[in-house]
């Protein structure tokens, strides 16, 4: 089955009812989408399908045949970060980091449709995403900083002095 993942055309061999999550993680070794529950209840598996946020653990491969899939790895080259990544980094929106990919992907989808999303819109977009570490405050603040333009931006600010690689 044909898929495009982070801009790369892939031919995957998994059974058509295999979840997209397992296809990404096990066959393509793209591991940022996480198996937090595999029931659609935590949001850590969220990826973009043709730009829309989807629970990859609930998405059968057959449903995304021919689609464009974007995961966190596809948001940037990892050195020059996307604004949402930079904001999560600068504002400490990650503790253990496990929910972060899903949070960032859902936020990316929201901000591409509502670049100046309000706090209410952000909270609604992240309604189905659970974080057990941070208490959500810094996550919302990070997304808000991108939405209201107060974020540092995402070009070369990736590694602040003192940060490690």
């Amino acid at each position, binding site marked *: 089955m044909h898929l495009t993942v982070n801009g790369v055309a892939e031919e995957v061999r998994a059974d058509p009812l295999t*979840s997209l999550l397992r296809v990404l993680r096990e066959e393509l070794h793209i591991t940022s989408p996480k198996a937090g529950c595999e*029931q*659609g209840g935590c949001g850590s598996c969220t990826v973009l399908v043709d730009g829309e946020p989807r629970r990859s653990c609930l998405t059968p491969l057959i449903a995304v045949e021919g689609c464009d899939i974007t995961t966190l790895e596809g948001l940037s080259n990892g050195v020059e970060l996307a604004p949402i990544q930079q904001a999560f980094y600068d504002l400490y929106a990650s503790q253990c980091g496990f929910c972060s990919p899903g949070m960032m992907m859902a936020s990316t989808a929201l901000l591409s449709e509502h670049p100046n999303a309000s706090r209410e819109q952000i909270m609604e977009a992240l309604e*189905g995403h659970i974080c057990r570490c941070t208490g959500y405050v810094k996550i919302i603040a990070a997304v808000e900083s991108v939405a209201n333009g107060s974020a540092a931006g995402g070009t070369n600010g990736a590694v602040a002095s003192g940060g490690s690689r």
Partner: protein
Amino acid sequence: MTAPPELLTPTSPAEAAAVFGDGEGVTVMGGGTILLPELTYGKLRPTRVLVLGRAGMSGLERADGSVRIGAGTPVGELDGAPEPLVTAAKHVADVEIRAVGTIGGNLCATAGASAPRGDLQAPLLALGARITSVGAGGETTEDITAFLEHGTGRLVLSLEVPDGQAFGYARLDRPHTHHYTMLAVTAVRGADGVRVAASGVGARSQRLAGVESALAGGATAAEAAERAGEGLDLPTDALASSWYRGQMLPLLVQRALGQLG
């Protein structure tokens, strides 16, 4: 290892009906939000799966006094459908799940292990939706009450929901979480009287016979609410206890009836 299931991938409603046949041995997949976890966890090992994603069963059509909704319409794409269906739908899970979970899947959802599913059955019951389905005996269109009574086994093609009826809707929610409906009441005034239905009162949503009967007999909202629990065996599950549901149901009934005006 068990062989993977045979996939049926119709590209039209007619083809879907044809491959469904009488439904024997067929597992239907709408959005997949209920089915995928069962497959992943090895709880279901279907032999034939009917994939409806590209069967063209999605969309809303306005007719005279009613709206026809394709069974494959995602729950998040019901804008324009009669209220309180749209409001109830906005409370289903979260935005990502609403984008793929279908109204047909929600209508036909069986009870989950930890909580009842099928959040939209109650608004549809109260609205007097008519369900067009196929299966053994061919195609039928019937009132949703009758459809839900004869259980699973049919493939829903579309729902027709009368438009413009006065409604009331009241629900219980846990704050800041998304979850299957804990308890929600819909009241709708139709041509033949007031229909009242509740979700979260059992494996399937139910019409509140006691309340309807009281109202038909001229009772006030408060009096009718006292009969809210009649005939119900309220569940204790992961979301709420039977006792709690029993306390809250009459309050929600009163609130919903109060909105009817």
